[in-house]
């Protein structure tokens, strides 16, 4: 288990992190979201024991990072922001070094390095100096280092930054595969990632937690949740369709996008619109190109919670 208790970090007069508390259980993948400068990286550094907290404390598997740092760090795989490594070393040597520091050795370490490098597809670059590698490979070398000792806790600061879509997919698969038995915290500013891998999302703004929910619950906060969008062929009368929609009992209001030639109907609380609208559309023979039920928009929720609380 990971526990953070009232973590605070001051940089001179600036309060970067302002009382963050949460705990994460095994099997949970926690996504850390927030605008740049919100305190994500500082919080993760305090959890990993790199930055001492100005107040509060953090615990990893029951060991406090400030008073029992070695015990805590043994149970942790940490990917710092930017995945730093020793540039003159080749990934093979680098992993060997980290493995030995972590108490692995001999054939067990060799076998583990083989497994991890196969997992992250480092095969072709195992003998090249890390500083000559592409950003994607460097990131994967960093990830390899975090999972080398098979730790119960992973803290990954932007694990997919700089990866191409295929590589992102691979890393997400990796995280999903490890999710069941580990505690994983990732920070990201890619919202789709939260949906793809996280079971829980914490949004930070101005050094405080402004939301702590499942990704579904976050999406449900969106005003688009359960709204119905219709895109019409240009032959249709957009104004007439909009008027018809507004007549429906469950519709609260509508929004028209003239450029897209589409209209979105927002439901009154608790109303379900999809069936009534599709029936109406059939009856009126609207030339519909696309009709869909909106799940909600995470970027809109993100903007809402981070801007109103920062102000």
């Amino acid at each position, binding site marked *: 288990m990971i526990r953070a208790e009232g973590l605070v970090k001051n940089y001179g007069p600036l309060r970067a992190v302002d009382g963050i508390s949460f705990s994460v259980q095994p099997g949970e993948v926690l996504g850390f979201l927030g605008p740049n400068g919100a305190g994500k990286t500082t919080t993760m550094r305090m959890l990993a*024991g*790199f930055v001492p907290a100005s107040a509060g404390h953090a615990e990893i598997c029951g060991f406090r990072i400030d008073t029992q740092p070695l015990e805590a*760090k043994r149970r942790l795989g940490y990917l710092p922001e930017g995945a730093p490594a*020793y540039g003159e070393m080749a990934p093979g040597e680098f992993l060997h*070094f980290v493995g030995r*520091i*972590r108490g692995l050795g001999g054939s067990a370490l060799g076998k583990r390095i083989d497994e991890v490098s196969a997992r992250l597809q480092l095969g072709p670059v195992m003998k090249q*100096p890390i500083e000559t590698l592409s950003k994607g490979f460097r990131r994967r070398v960093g990830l390899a280092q975090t999972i080398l000792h098979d730790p119960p806790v992973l803290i990954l600061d932007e694990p997919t930054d700089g990866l191409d879509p295929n590589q992102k997919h691979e890393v997400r698969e990796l995280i999903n595969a490890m999710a069941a038995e580990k505690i994983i915290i990732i920070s990201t500013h890619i919202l789709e990632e939260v949906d793809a891998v996280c079971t829980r999302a914490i949004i930070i703004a101005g050094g405080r937690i402004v939301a702590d929910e499942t990704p579904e619950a976050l999406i449900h906060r969106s005003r688009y949740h359960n709204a119905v969008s219709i895109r019409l062929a240009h032959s249709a009368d957009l104004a007439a369709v909009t008027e018809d929609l507004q007549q429906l009992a469950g519709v609260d209001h509508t929004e028209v996008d003239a450029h897209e030639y589409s209209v979105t109907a927002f439901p009154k609380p608790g109303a379900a619109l999809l069936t009534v609208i599709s029936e109406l559309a059939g009856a009126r023979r609207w030339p519909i190109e696309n009709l869909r039920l909106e799940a909600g928009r995470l970027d809109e929720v993100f903007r809402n919670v981070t801007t109103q609380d920062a102000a």
Partner: protein
Amino acid sequence: MEAIRIIAGRELRSYFATPLAYVFIVIFLAMMGVFTFYLGGFYERGQADLTPFFSFHPWLYLFLVPAIAMRLWAEERKSGSIELLMTLPVTMWEAVLGKFLAAWLFIAVALALTFPIWITVNYLGDPDNGVIVAAYLGSLLMAGGFLAIGACISAANRNQVVAFIVTVVICFLFMLAGFPLVLNFFSGWLPTAVLDAISGLSFLTHFNALSKGVLDIRDVLYFLLVIGAWLYANTIVLELRKAD
């Protein structure tokens, strides 16, 4: 202990992975030769000892050791690998000692490569090899002192050039602490006891004793204490500033 060995090993290999090690060794040996034969008048003196060789070590170390030390922590900071190192299960002392010992061992290797001069002097005459061994030991201890100062300064700076210059200045002051250049600054307003204490800190005084073959335990202890004190300061500086 194991962690110190692993960190030192990694560090030492990284010296040889870049041109740094080779450039340093070549310059170190070339300068040694120039100083000993031209400035020291090794042949002209007609004496079978290595005094001209060792008497220039402090001056050579003054510039070459800070060049090794400046990258110790500044480089880790710049590349961000310090965050990796400090979140691995190692203590601050293990990290500081591992990096220091690697650099010290490297200087020891460079120093050991001056062995031809020792062979030469034995071939040409009949020197007191006990004195030479003591002088080598003194030279290595003094290099360790310079290195510990440099490691601490390197930990306080992200900029390697600044680390280099500050280290050279501090080493220079430590070296000449017993000489008028430094003492005149303090004399007149500090009591004699303090002046004696300051002059007792002089690298040169302690090194000169060792290089004459006087293997006084107090001189050895002095250098070990200097190293210990600066490395302790190094751990404190890192603890305070590692994430800045």
